């Protein structure tokens, strides 16, 4: 998927900012914090995971998503960091 397609979605940016801030989260928690429904968040997460930006970590039945160690993920994290620093 092209960069502009990944980053053109407001919910995806919000998900990325949330995970960047809190480290790792499960889908229900993300949906609750963003006041959005589970299915919608799950769809966005799948895209971000398939692009290698997020990775899944499972603890028994608990499934949590966090930034992967890929170059793409680090670049996105760097973007959020720079942006958040500037607006802080």
């Amino acid at each position, binding site marked *: 998927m092209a960069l502009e397609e990944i980053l053109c979605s407001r919910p995806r940016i919000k998900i990325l900012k949330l995970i960047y801030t809190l480290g*790792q*989260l499960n889908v229900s928690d993300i949906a609750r914090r963003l006041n959005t429904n589970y299915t919608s968040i799950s769809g966005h997460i799948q895209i971000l995971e398939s692009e290698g930006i997020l990775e899944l970590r499972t*603890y*028994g039945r608990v499934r949590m998503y966090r930034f992967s160690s890929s170059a793409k993920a680090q670049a996105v994290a760097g973007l959020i960091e720079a942006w958040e620093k500037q607006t802080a």
Partner: protein
Amino acid sequence: MTTSYSVFRDESKLDINYIPSKLPHREKEQRLLSEFFNFIIQCPTQMTQRVILTGDVGTGKTALAQTFGADLTSQTKRKNLKFHYVHINCREFRGSLQPILHKIVTAFRPTYPARGYAADEILATLMQVLDEEETTLIVTLDEFDSLIEKEGSDAVYKLTRIHETRQGQPQRLSFIFIMRDLNAIEHLDDSAKSTLQRNIIRLQRYGKPQLIDILNDRAALAFTLGAVEDDVIDLTAELAHSQTGNARFGIELLWRAGKYADASELGHISAECIRNAISAIIPTLHRSELASLDFHEKLFLLAIARYFKENQEAYVQIGEAEKAYQVICEEYEEPPKSHTQIWLYVQYLSKLGVLKAEVVSSETRGRANRISLPSIPAAELEQEMNLSLQGKR
């Protein structure tokens, strides 16, 4: 709010959650704890340990564990070893294992979901997280009795035998269990019991001289210079000692007395502040007990009350008390009783807990009897006695 006349320099040093950098009179126990957990420095993932700390309220169990945890954390940091210390009070979670384990996991994974997962799953997650972090962990379960009471043998067994299901893998999770009463263990079945009863450190009650050292240490950190005189510390230690050697009680008393001192803009803590503080903490004197005293006992108590109200002292020599009593007798136009009779009053009132009498030795003046008013403010006692003596003049 700290005001310009405040006796406090840093009142957080008297807070229940403050972890002191040194624990007077617990050096032996600290060394023992260090010995038990020495492997965390020497061979971190080769073994685990379980230790029970037990003792009465205010004997320093929590402070000992927390100080030890803080020390070990800084030691391991210096040696670049991965180590964490987590302190949990089981009573805060009503002794339920699931939220206790959740709390431990969130020390590493703050967003781990709070609901929907069983204790077994969370324990497995904890072990996975420790592996991911490649760290060792000591968990202190404070007020462990409440967990035993709520969850019984199964929970204890799960916690203490977790490494048996991980043969050949790094050993990462150790425990300190804090219990007031070891009898709780007796309710466990034999297999759970056997995992606990190996390393027990018993903390004896503090004696009065030890309490004086502890209170002096805290007072030096918490109060401004000269705000607390030695005799006030002495009186506070005496009171804490009478409360089964409860250091926490003494520390709380100092804090409360400091508040009374500030409210009265005294600039220092007087013995009366301590008495005010203790009367706010524990119900001390029953009116019926005072009402049942005979006439001269009441006169004597009134004399003591006035003495302490007028003199900001913690103790009065018996001779001085007798003089004060004679003045009161004059006021009530009564011939004073003899010295021997007064001594009997002191003993009786002491037995009731209204006064405290003790013999002290000094190099210059030999042995002397001194009296303190441990648990009721002098002003309150004076008022009570005046009421009780009304119409007797």
